[in-house]
């Protein structure tokens, strides 16, 4: 805590960079996961393979995954960003697929029978009802991403990980504590906010 009181702006700036990294990675991850999740929901035969592959990636330890991307992209922002996007796919795509699968088939039959196009069935009927489950997936993914993003500090990236890894190098416990506590507070706050969103979306 002493580091936080002596360098509040430094911690705040790194926290802001941390949030920015996770937010941008999450937006990109959502754009990738949405078609994958819809595909998994539409093609029951493809679903186990697709989700299985994403699950396999998810089981790779994050540090090992990051090492692969450092090899590919060099140090800096890119490896941690790509690792976050790929890591989140399993949780996001699975929650989209589960949300759509959970919808009563009669509603989809009625929607088609009344003359909705495939896109209208998805956006007007399926997606709104899958949203609470989907936001649940975003919540789990966002928390994991906040934690994993700290590894960015190790590979020359930005965020609160910088404090943790610099602290380790410099034997400055106060820095390590400040970085970890700030990341934890961030995760808890995001969790609470998305939990509330989820509750507001439920019917």
């Amino acid at each position, binding site marked *: 805590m002493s580091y936080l009181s002596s360098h509040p702006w430094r911690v705040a700036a790194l926290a802001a960079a941390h949030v920015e990294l996770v937010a941008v990675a999450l937006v990109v991850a959502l754009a990738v996961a949405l078609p994958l999740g819809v595909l998994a929901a539409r093609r029951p035969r493809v679903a186990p393979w697709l989700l299985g592959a994403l699950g396999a990636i998810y089981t790779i330890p994050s540090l090992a995954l990051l090492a692969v991307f450092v090899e590919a992209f060099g140090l800096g922002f890119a490896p941690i960003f790509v690792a976050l996007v790929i890591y989140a796919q399993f949780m996001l795509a699975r929650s989209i697929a589960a949300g759509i699968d959970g919808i009563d088939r009669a*509603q989809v039959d009625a*929607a088609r*029978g*009344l003359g*909705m196009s495939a896109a209208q069935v998805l956006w007007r009927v399926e997606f709104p*009802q899958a949203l609470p489950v989907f936001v649940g997936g975003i919540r789990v993914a966002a928390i994991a991403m906040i934690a994993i993003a700290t590894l960015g500090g190790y590979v020359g990236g930005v965020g609160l990980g910088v404090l943790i890894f610099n602290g380790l190098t410099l034997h400055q416990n106060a820095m390590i504590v400040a970085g970890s506590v700030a990341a934890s507070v961030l995760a808890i706050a995001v969790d609470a906010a998305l939990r509330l969103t989820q509750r507001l979306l439920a019917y």
Partner: protein
Amino acid sequence: MNPASIRFQDVTVRYAGVQRNAVTDISLEVGGGELVVLLGPSGCGKSTLLRTVNRLVPLQSGRVEVDGNDVARLDAVELRRSVGYVIQAVGLFANMTVAQNIAVVPSLLGWNRRDIDARVDELLQLIGLDPAAYRNRRPSALSGGEAQRIGVARAIAARPRALLMDEPFGAVDVVVRTALQRELIRIVGELRTTTIFVTHDVDEAFRLADRIVVMREGRIEQAGAPFDVFQDPATPYVRQLVHAGDDVYRRYYMRTRELLRAT
């Protein structure tokens, strides 16, 4: 709008990965404004035949025409918007209010806000529900009978020229079912919409039909006026079916209809 005529011509349907045809070589004409009931046990192909009209089921061979137009040549989405569709499980959209559910097809067709609102209230009144009390309800806050009434309102909202009903009253209790049947007779009578109604309930068929089409194993056993089917069953199966259970009500309807016809 003038009611549509529907024509099935040598219609055969086989589902992918199934050995037996769901529907075999069926030909049938449904005149404008007629209420035809497809009657038969589950698995006889009656729902499949119904769903060929709005192209929810593709044909193996043959053709289905609405007003002389081959449905295979029409745009499926446009076709479905012009034909009402009601199913047993209702399928009201849980993310929408009652009013939004009823307004689905009119809003897909791009009606303006004021016309849609007026139409929703008009339909709620038609099905005997107070618009002020029901307009903003969620489907989860409705009874089975209310939900099915709204399912019917949603199907007729954009004044379709034909109405397809797939065991619409199968899941509600007998008191509600009788009330819904009475309302349907009144509504269809007012609108003069061509209606194909699928059921396995023999009494329901006799109560509603202008013409009954008895189906079995994907084929038509007999098609005719209720009185003729009852008096003169074409096959042993039809005879067995029309006398199944307690047929006292059927006899009563037949007698009443004959008396009405005589006057």
